[in-house]
């Protein structure tokens, strides 16, 4: 049956997006969208899924073995939950500004399409959702972004489309090769293991790696990211960093590694090198930034490197830690982008040296920023530590040098994050400082940040809650 809870999970936001457009007035659409996103969050949280994909839908075959097929396991569930949760945060954080109905609708479309990506178990459907995600984000960046938004939006779309086209060729190759081997046309994600051998396998794996890698993003396919993250409105950056980057790692977990378990293991040194370069390169780039938002953007490249380290290590703890780190990064970077957005909204500046001594002016902001920065650099007791530790522990078992690079990355994270934090909140105010424009958080903003920071604390103190959901879904990939 097509009509199942899973269909509702992705279709509800999309239908809601059209309704929000129909409301016309930005105010009404905003209230409606937030209500709808809360409903979808509750719906997602309460879904009665069970491990082993008990919750799955397969529609009738369309043509050429294309099915409408969705399924949900622990991995899908946490990603959907993250998506629904950050959508609520992003939408509520936008309440302060006058926004048109289209703005709210775009976020709902984005949420629905992302749900589809995390639910699809048919490659055709997966690709459709994967691409549809680009459309609302293109408009979010291009219409509501800051000064250089037009360039950033087009660059973002073209870069990811480049990866997607290669990925599509890879998918087509897999489907065609399966047909040659079995005589059956099918786009099912399952059962593709072993259909490609020899050079074809290498080529397909490379195409998939580029396709997913653009999204992660892996260096050197990352150049769209700083522009897109910096130019997007704060809520857009939250969704971009919080959920959309995760699509890439999800693709590795869901498609590339399950289909090529041996090849991806043989390529471990190369994949590990990619992850290590991400960590070190992202950190060094972040070190060189004078724009606070750009700094957070580059730090995302480094953080996603940790996720890749864990995933590529193919150990139980590495896979679970890498996946957990996806959630962690969503919370911490979401909070950081939210606060940088608040600073920008009040002062129209983002430079690290444009501020100084914010502590006295905005104690709550200082508190939450300190909290999030600590989580981001991996302070024990908060979420980042758990994810990074598990990823590196996994890496240390298979490739110790990778763990060494990771630890260097942890140190570098402190090196780029703390000085910036120190300058903005405790440093001296320069002659051009705009700190005096910054007022403290409103109740609404505090509420959002409480939720995010309590989430970080919860995962830090009780990681087994989420890990008990993630591990069963990812341990099958461990060697």
């Amino acid at each position, binding site marked *: 049956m097509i009509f199942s809870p899973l269909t509702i999970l992705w279709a509800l936001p999309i239908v809601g997006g059209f309704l929000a457009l129909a409301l016309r007035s930005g105010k009404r659409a905003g209230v409606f969208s937030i209500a709808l996103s809360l409903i979808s969050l509750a719906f997602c949280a309460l879904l009665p899924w069970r491990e082993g994909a008990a919750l799955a839908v397969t529609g009738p075959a*369309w*043509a*050429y073995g*294309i099915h409408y097929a969705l399924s949900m396991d622990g991995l899908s569930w946490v990603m959907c939950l993250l998506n629904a949760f950050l959508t609520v945060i992003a939408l509520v954080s936008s309440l302060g500004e006058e926004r048109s109905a289209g703005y709210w609708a775009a976020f709902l479309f984005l949420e629905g399409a992302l749900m589809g990506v995390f639910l699809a178990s048919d490659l*055709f459907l997966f*690709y*459709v*959702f*994967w*691409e*549809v995600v*680009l*459309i609302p984000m*293109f*408009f979010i960046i*291009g*219409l509501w972004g800051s000064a250089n*938004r*037009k360039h950033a*939006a*087009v660059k973002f*779309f*073209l870069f990811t*489309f*480049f990866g997607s*086209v*290669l990925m*599509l*060729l890879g998918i*087509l*190759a897999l489907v*065609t090769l399966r047909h040659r081997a079995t005589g059956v046309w099918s786009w099912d994600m399952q059962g593709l293991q072993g259909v490609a051998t020899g050079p074809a396998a290498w080529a397909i794996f490379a195409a998939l790696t580029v396709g997913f890698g653009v999204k992660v993003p892996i260096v050197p396919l990352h150049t769209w990211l700083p522009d897109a993250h910096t130019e997007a409105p704060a809520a857009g950056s939250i969704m971009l960093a919080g959920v959309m980057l995760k699509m890439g790692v999800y693709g590795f977990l869901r498609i590339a590694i399950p289909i090529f378990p041996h090849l991806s293991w043989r390529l471990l040194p190369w994949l590990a090198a990619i992850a290590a370069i991400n960590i070190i390169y992202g950190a060094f780039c972040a070190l060189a930034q004078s724009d606070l938002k750009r700094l957070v953007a580059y730090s995302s490249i480094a953080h996603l490197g940790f996720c890749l380290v864990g995933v590529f290590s193919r150990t139980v703890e590495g896979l679970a830690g890498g996946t957990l780190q996806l959630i962690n990064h969503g919370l911490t970077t979401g909070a950081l982008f939210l606060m940088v957005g608040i600073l920008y909204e009040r002062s129209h500046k983002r430079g690290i040296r444009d501020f100084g001594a914010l502590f006295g002016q905005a104690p709550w902001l200082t508190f939450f920023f300190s909290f999030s920065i600590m989580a981001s650099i991996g302070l024990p007791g908060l979420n980042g530590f758990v994810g990074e530790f598990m990823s590196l522990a996994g890496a240390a078992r298979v490739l110790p040098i990778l763990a060494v690079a990771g630890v260097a990355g942890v140190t570098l994270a402190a090196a780029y994050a703390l000085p910036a934090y120190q300058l903005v909140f405790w440093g001296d105010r320069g002659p051009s400082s705009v700190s005096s424009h910054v007022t403290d958080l409103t109740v609404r903003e505090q509420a959002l940040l409480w939720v995010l920071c309590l989430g970080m604390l919860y995962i830090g103190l009780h990681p087994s809650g989420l890990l008990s959901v993630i591990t069963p879904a990812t341990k099958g990939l461990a060697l």
Partner: protein
Amino acid sequence: MSAAAVGGLLAPQMVLAAGLLGVLGAGMAAFSPKFIKSLMILAILGAFALAFGAHPGAGDALVGLDGLGFSWQLVFYAAALPLAFLMVAESEVAPALVLGSLLGLGILAVSANLLMLFIGLELMSLPAYLLVARSRGGAKTSVEAAIKYFFAGGAAGGLFLLGLALYYFTQKTMSFAGPGGFGAEAGIALMGSAALFKIGAFPLHFWLPDVYEASDPELTGFLSTALKAGGVLLLMRLAALSPAGAFSRALPWFGAATMIFGAVLALKQERLQRLLAYSSMAHAGNIILGVGAWAALGASPAAAVAVFFYLAAYLFMNNGAFSFLKATGAKTRADLHGLGARNPKAAAAFAVLLLALGGVPPTAGFLAKLLIFWAAFKAHLYIPLLLAALGALLALGYYLALLKDLYFEDAPAQAPALEPGRGLAVLWTCAVPAAVLGVAPWVLTYMSRLLAL
């Protein structure tokens, strides 16, 4: 086969011919232009209905209807409807020319013989030259473009005849089933170049940008969908004569070159119709690649679904885009600035069409490209396939640029007034199928059934 049965095959063509005579007669009897236009629309609708209800059959030595001809006829008549609705008809001349061109396309569809193909080819083209010359009130540039078009078309016709002569000389027949051999290959190559001329494939495209730019927008829509589909059918008939021949094997490369060339040049255009002209070259490249893959896979009519779907999707996408130009009067990219805010409904429809033309899921354009790529993959055409992927990326570049103009650029302080025409209804009628056909793969099952008739 009896004469009556052949007559049954030709029912749509007879309706078109009757409509043509009726339009001319009504013009002489000084009926109102409105009436004449309605008569034309009625004739096209009638032809479509009859074509839809036709029963394919072998016919005689000259005409016959197979699944390919059956399906293509539907594309031809449907692609003429936007022009029929949007054209400005002050007299009987333009409607008569449209019906004449359609009659040529109809003959092309039922041809079972190379000579009939030639007649169809010429009959579809001759009225088109005149329609181009009459565009924009007979402006100088339009007449110039028409002359260019005429000479290019004449050269194509000459090539076709030359190839036909060679074919007949070596094969002793003008039917599709000759014994083959070098003479046949050479003849097919010459006739095939005529088809490539008509489609506007690189390097035989030089007439295309000028003609597409100088015509009225709705006419360009017709030229780039209906007449192009005619050229594609011609190409497929010729490729099917020798699916593994040199000409068929060269087609994917022509396709890839056309695509890259059109896409690169479209990137640089400021004038919208010229941009869409080059972009239609890029699409033609995809289609030619699809024909090449189809031939490499054995050229069975039922396997032509990729090309058929592409043309059907393109019919909506491109006619929609040109009816947007007609409806808003936009001529340059600067005219688009801020249109998203000034004219949100038309802009939204155009945005959908642009995404479809760019091949972004879930639109029809995506599925169309996917099917072509897939066919190329099955036919082991890996390098043309990679070039096509590159072309798709380049193409997205200019469609996104147009989206950027529509929504992200602010309108200039004193925006030049546009001259909006009619066409919003046609625009939406085209935009909706372009938007949703991509997630309706069951359409493909239906199309395969039609092709296998």
